[in-house]
């Protein structure tokens, strides 16, 4: 995750002033849209759902910008909104369509297979299947740590969870994925 912190600090300052707020937010969208999109996409797998959730994330941030007090960095605040939006979406989908976590896993996997915007080879598809077998919060932790290589101290702020708990969560996720591949073989 390569985020220019200095640029973000400047944008945060401009967001405080009503006159420059719209342009500053526009710059924030351009800066954060890719990392946030991939963060969401790895959870929901499907492009259309990721697009909707990304839009919701930015709109919620825009309407709540006055409540952002700068206690955390703006990008960690955005990650928190995106993570909450994604987990809420997945919970709603589970309530609507499926009765068990296995069915949910199958639904997401079939979405992934049907998605024309998935370029992965067979091994990557298998990895996605293994990741899908994890509980949602563990999946979130695994994706951020494994794909985006985010430090635990940054993840702490992004997910509002202690570094110790995140390390344990990631460790469990790795073990489960390894077990999944062993079982498959």
């Amino acid at each position, binding site marked *: 995750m390569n985020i220019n912190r200095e640029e973000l600090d400047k944008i945060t300052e401009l967001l405080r002033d009503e006159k420059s707020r*719209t342009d500053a*937010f*526009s710059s924030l*969208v*351009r800066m954060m*849209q*890719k990392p946030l*999109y*991939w963060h969401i*996409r*790895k959870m929901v*797998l499907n*492009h259309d759902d990721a*697009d909707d959730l*990304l*839009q919701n994330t*930015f*709109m919620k941030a*825009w309407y709540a910008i006055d409540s952002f007090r700068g206690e955390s960095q703006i990008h960690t605040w955005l990650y928190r909104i995106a993570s909450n939006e994604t987990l809420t979406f997945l919970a709603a989908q589970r309530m609507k369509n499926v009765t068990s976590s296995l069915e949910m896993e199958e639904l997401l996997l079939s979405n992934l297979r049907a998605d024309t*915007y*998935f*370029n*992965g*080879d*067979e*091994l*990557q*598809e*298998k*990895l*996605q299947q*293994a990741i899908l077998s994890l509980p949602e919060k563990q999946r979130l932790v695994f994706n951020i740590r*494994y*794909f985006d*290589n985010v430090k635990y101290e940054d993840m702490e702020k992004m997910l509002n969870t202690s570094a110790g708990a995140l390390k344990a969560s990631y460790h469990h996720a*790795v073990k489960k*994925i*390894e077990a999944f*591949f062993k079982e*498959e*073989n």
Partner: protein
Amino acid sequence: MTHNFNFEENSTDNPFCVPDGYFEDFALKMDRAIKPVEISIWQKSKPYLYVAAMFVMIFAVGLIFYRTNKLDANIAENRQVTVYSETANEILLDDVNEDILTEYILANASYQLQNN
């Protein structure tokens, strides 16, 4: 086919992709969603014009109503006056006794003779 997954060796390349130009379009879509809409003077003044037009209409309707009522009142008044005057003549003619009239004519004639 068997798959061995080694976290150290396997690439963490992103297996997902997006439609061409997706991020450019997304940023523009967000701009449209957050930027205040430019409103022309005509659009800005529209609500005030509607209110002004409403007041003019209320005033015009009130004026028409007032004038119609006034006209009706005048017609009624004129009719009443006519009725009153007609009634007065009738009452006069009815009430004037022929004897009194004769007496009045005679008194009037004698007064004129005396003065002449």
